[in-house]
């Protein structure tokens, strides 16, 4: 199994970890083949609506912003597709404002944009969302702190231990080196895994820019020798 790509619990640069990150080492349990953590919820394609994956068509009008397609595959650690798994996304609008009532950033809400989507991967492990490019937004972690533009992703995989919530970033974003959340990941190659690729093949002429973002989940513990 590859080394863990994940950030350490305690990452002092991200202030909210100080009182929330566990201090004790996690406890091994994977020797039990009956452990229910080695199984995962199953999702049917009928559980998500046809329009759930198009964040630009959830209201009467079109949202303001740069229309984009975000697509990729969910893979296991051996590169095999993870089919029929639920992928959920949420994001700020093009002005960097979330519809969430806790977001007090003085940027406009967009009446035509909620910013939440869902889809279930196909037989190749592929998902596809149509949305608008989210804006950067300020937060109060430190003085003059700004989050790079990002889309939040939630993926299930084949085991509850593969469950992953992460964030996708955009290539060339000048805020990435200053972001303690992205920079909490120690390994540069692992950080790069979270940066999508602009892709002309996904881009649709006269309509939307395309970004590719694959998600590689850990092997299920039972599969490791």
């Amino acid at each position: 199994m590859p080394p863990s790509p994940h950030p350490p619990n305690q990452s002092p640069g991200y202030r909210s970890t100080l009182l929330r990150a566990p201090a004790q080492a996690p406890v091994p349990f994977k020797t039990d083949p009956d452990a229910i953590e080695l199984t995962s919820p199953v999702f049917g394609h009928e559980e998500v609506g046809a329009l759930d994956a198009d964040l630009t068509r959830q209201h009467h009008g079109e949202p303001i912003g740069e229309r984009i397609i975000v697509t990729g595959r969910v893979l296991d650690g051996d590169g095999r597709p993870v089919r029929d798994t639920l992928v959920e996304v949420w994001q700020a609008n093009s002005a960097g404002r979330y519809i969430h009532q806790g977001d007090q950033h003085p940027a406009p809400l967009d009446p035509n944009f909620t910013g939440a989507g869902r889809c279930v991967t196909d037989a190749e492990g592929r998902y596809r969302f149509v949305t608008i490019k989210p804006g950067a937004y300020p937060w109060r972690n430190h003085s003059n702190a700004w989050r790079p533009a990002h889309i939040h992703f939630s993926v299930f995989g084949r085991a509850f231990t593969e469950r992953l919530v992460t964030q996708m970033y955009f290539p060339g974003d000048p805020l990435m080196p200053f972001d303690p959340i992205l920079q909490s990941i120690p390994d540069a190659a692992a950080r790069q895994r979270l940066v999508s690729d602009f892709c002309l093949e996904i881009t649709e002429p006269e309509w939307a820019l395309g970004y590719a973002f694959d998600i590689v989940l850990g092997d299920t513990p039972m599969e490791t020798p």
Partner: protein
Amino acid sequence: MTLTPSQTVGPFYGYALPYEHDWELVAEGHPEAITLSGRVLDGAGEPVPDALLELWLGFTGDRGALLRGDGLVSGFGRCGTAPDGSYRFRTVRPSGPYLSLQIFARGLLRSVLTRVYLEDRPDPLLDSLDPARRRTLIATGSGDSYHFDVRLQGTGETVFLDF
């Protein structure tokens, strides 16, 4: 192949991840229903008002994990914490000795995974822990009502699993 690293769920998942009846794995009045409730607390003992909990019973149930319906049992549920850090699930008993609980929150760069045992019993995981830590995995209560607090850090810190 580099695996995809985790990032925090952040504070603003609340309009996206919750879904209708997400905390109700069975409908009200189900003959085998039990409730599991508790609070999520931080290292200062303060409630965590913006955590998301996911409960997994180890079986998918009658339909897909998101669907709900009269008399149906789902094996998966979600609950966001209230301003006082509390959560609740209406579920059935798991087929084995414990329920699997995963917790996401702002300030957790990766989710934490734990187990809720409805009663203390001989068990490979429990038996590997010292008594004080063992207690953090045992729900209190009986019959159809159980209580389980999650302490993310500090005194009485809940045992979290390596995954």
